[in-house]
């Protein structure tokens, strides 16, 4: 078996493990829903005891209770505090395992091709999704966003599946136009940015759901997506989405600049409104709009969340439709 076959095998194994992780994340959400149902029945009899409990839980440990005379109620804490979940830990462990296999797939592909493994659509999808998982793992080590697991792992599974089935190409040497250090930098930063936009997107979607739930009222038994009651409040989700999106926006700005520098070297002009350049620009402007919306009265909250969602839709469109069906200089899909 040569290295490339090993890479393909590792990738399919990673997908199998991700599928298991996806199931585990989904079970966790189902468990959360069950807990919310139970809590809903409880509140029906014991009024809002859980809520008070949750609020004071959150404030303990925030600061030194001995010298602070004031306890800070956190309005953004989950309404129902989820229980410690074994299946969630299994899900994260499986994601890490899948990630290691995925990483193996990317590295062996790169070694087999004697270059970075992101020079055509198959490789770009493989490495891009790898970065999505890596970003997710890094983020959940700092902030507990494990509830995004279903979405993130699900998204990666779909993308990887399409890439492995439809975009697979044999290893071919780089055409001269791609032989540049900028391929390494430009594409890598773009993928990392995409990963963070994906996180921002997921958080914005949850923010909207959560916002609607909070607007309807706290009656847990009437909830459709029950698990959202175990997630942070919409304001906190919005702040998290914003943080993911601004980091991504900076990476995207860098991608744009690095792309222009590379275009100057390769094509003799730094900007030419090539289709790919157009879409990179459109995405940049949408997210600039998103950042503005957050600072515009009447646009904070749900409206700006929609811009984050539209922005990510444009990112996906740029990667799929623009690469495959639009004509332009960026013909690197390899298909």
């Amino acid at each position: 078996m040569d290295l490339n076959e090993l890479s393909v095998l590792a990738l399919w194994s990673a997908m199998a493990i991700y599928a298991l992780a996806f199931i585990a994340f989904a079970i966790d959400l189902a468990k959360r829903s069950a807990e919310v149902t139970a809590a809903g029945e409880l509140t029906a009899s014991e009024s809002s005891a859980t809520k008070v409990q949750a609020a004071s839980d959150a404030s303990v440990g925030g600061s030194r209770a001995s010298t602070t005379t004031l306890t800070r109620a956190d309005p953004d804490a989950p309404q129902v505090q989820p229980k410690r979940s074994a299946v969630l830990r299994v899900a994260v462990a499986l994601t890490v395992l899948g990630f290691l296999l995925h990483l193996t797939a990317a590295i062996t592909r790169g070694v087999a091709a004697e270059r970075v493994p992101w020079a055509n659509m198959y490789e770009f999808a493989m490495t891009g999704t790898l970065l999505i998982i890596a970003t997710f793992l890094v983020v959940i080590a700092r902030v507990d966003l494990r509830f995004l697991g279903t979405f993130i792992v699900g998204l990666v599974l779909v993308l990887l599946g399409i890439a492995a089935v439809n975009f697979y190409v044999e290893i071919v040497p780089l055409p001269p136009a791609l032989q540049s250090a900028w391929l390494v930098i430009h594409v890598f930063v773009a993928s990392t940015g995409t990963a963070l936009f994906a996180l921002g997107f997921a958080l914005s979607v949850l923010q909207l759901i959560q916002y609607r739930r909070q607007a309807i009222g706290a009656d847990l038994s009437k909830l459709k997506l029950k698990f959202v009651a175990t997630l942070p409040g919409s304001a906190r989700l919005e702040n998290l989405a914003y943080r993911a999106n601004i980091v991504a926006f900076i990476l995207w700005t860098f991608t744009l600049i690095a792309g222009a520098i590379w275009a100057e070297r390769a094509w003799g002009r730094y900007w030419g409104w090539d289709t790919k350049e157009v879409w990179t620009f459109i995405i940049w402007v949408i997210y600039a709009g998103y950042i503005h919306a957050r600072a515009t009265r009447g646009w904070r909250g749900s409206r700006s969340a929609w811009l984050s969602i539209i922005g990510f839709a444009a990112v996906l469109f740029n990667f799929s439709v623009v690469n495959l069906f639009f004509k332009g200089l960026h013909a690197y899909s390899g298909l």
Partner: protein
Amino acid sequence: MSRPSDYVDAGAPLSEREPAESNPNIQQPKLGFVGTLRFIWRQLTSMRTALFLLLLLAVAAVPGSLVPQRSSDPNGVIQYFADNPKLAPVLDNIQMFDVYGSVWFSSIYLLLFISLIGCVIPRTKHHFDAMRARPPRTPARLERLPAHTEQTLEGGDAGAAIAAAHTLLKKSGYRTELYQGKKGDISVSAERGYLRETGNLVFHSALVGMLVTVAVGGGLGYAGQRVVVEGQTFVNTLLDYNSFNPGRFYNPDDLTPYALSLDRFDVTYEQKNLDAYGQPTDFTAFVTTRTPGGEPEKRTVKVNDPLRYEGTDVYLLGNGYAPTITVRDADGNVVFTDSVPFLPQDANLTSLGVVKIPDGLEKQLGMIGFFYPTAQLLDSGAYTSTYPDLVFPVLTLNVYTGDLGIDDGAPKSVYELNTDDMTQLTGGKTGVDSIELMPGQSQELPGGYGSITFENANPDAEPIAADASADDDGATVSTADFASSVPRFASFDVHHDPTQGWVFLFAMLILGGLLTSLFIPRRRVWVKATDNPDGTVRVQYAGLARGEDPGLIEAVDAIAYRHGTALGLER
């Protein structure tokens, strides 16, 4: 107003905010002319307008990716007109093929930038003042602020506590001011993160700088194209370009007349990897450059690696074969000899070219032909090329006589032959076989015009296998080494853009401004100490975010903690 009236500042005290959407029932005083202007100006420079224009800009950029653009894909536009003869003129009327230079696209971004300037100038002034102003008075009731904590100190006094807090905040990069309260309390008011606003202003100003530079830059430089065959020299003068597009403010007399000769053009083809057999993996143009009176210098130009020379950038953007063709009249006198660039049509370099012989023969002669570096006969009787290198090169030509249409002096593309006024002599319906040549071969022209030769640029090459199997008529051509029998050409783009450095500078300012403005928190912090009657000291800490500041609460807690430590609090 420092900021647009509809700017949300999460932490600004209510009194500083403008009233929310003013009640439409309130009777506005009559505005008058100046008042109306001021009203329009305020609308234009509001956050809502900026947001609207940004989103409009994003939407307006979309059509340019759906329809081919003259600037980036002129042939695509021609094709689009051919495919959609009804729709295309309609689209053309609304500048759909020139979206990014169109009136409507330009108006959007110009309005956006006017709004931007109108927004940035007052903010700059306000920021300038704010940087020199003293941190504001400590609010009377700190406990009302969302980020607030307090602790009680046993012993010491308020003065010492505030002195310690003052030192601590100063060391942490805050600008500070001491205040005496009405109820006997003393406090330190501190502010930090002015760089956040500076970064934001730098970012927005750099956007303006970028726009202006790009607008001006297009006018100051030039772009030219030139095809150079191996062995030929190109001189950087207006006449020597195949095409030349000067910017509005560029004077072609300013061209530096340096010379650039293409000594050799190397292409490396993949030969090991069967999935990519014949794919080029490297193009290198070996050139010699010389300024007037200067020494010749050897250099290379590669894809992704332009030659920076004498204020110009020379890019390698295309290449192909330029068969050397000689035409003699019936008496054997040479009337034409030249290496004619044939334009590649596919990955295996099936190439299309035109030969024009205006003088020397009875009538003007034109030829359209194909060159196949590795020719293979298809069942249909036509040739195709199966490999881009010179393995079995064949040149086929169809001959036309008549009027080449170049005598009236109007420039004509050297790659096109208008056969409307010409008579076809070979190929097609004429029943006469097309001319078909391999390097080194000659053939009679039809109609007794003379003869044509496909010159072999490397006639001394050893045959690959001397004992090659001869075919029926004893020719051993298939085993000859044609490696450098046909010269190659490189097509160079020469650009001069004196503003590129500025564009880069503004790009860096945009990035730097963005980083500072998005990641440096701007916050106010207050520490207030009051002596309690029982001898203890009550210390309050509060913070107020100006703009996004997810770490505010932790920051206030940390200040309280470090302050306690500095005062020797037991933990």
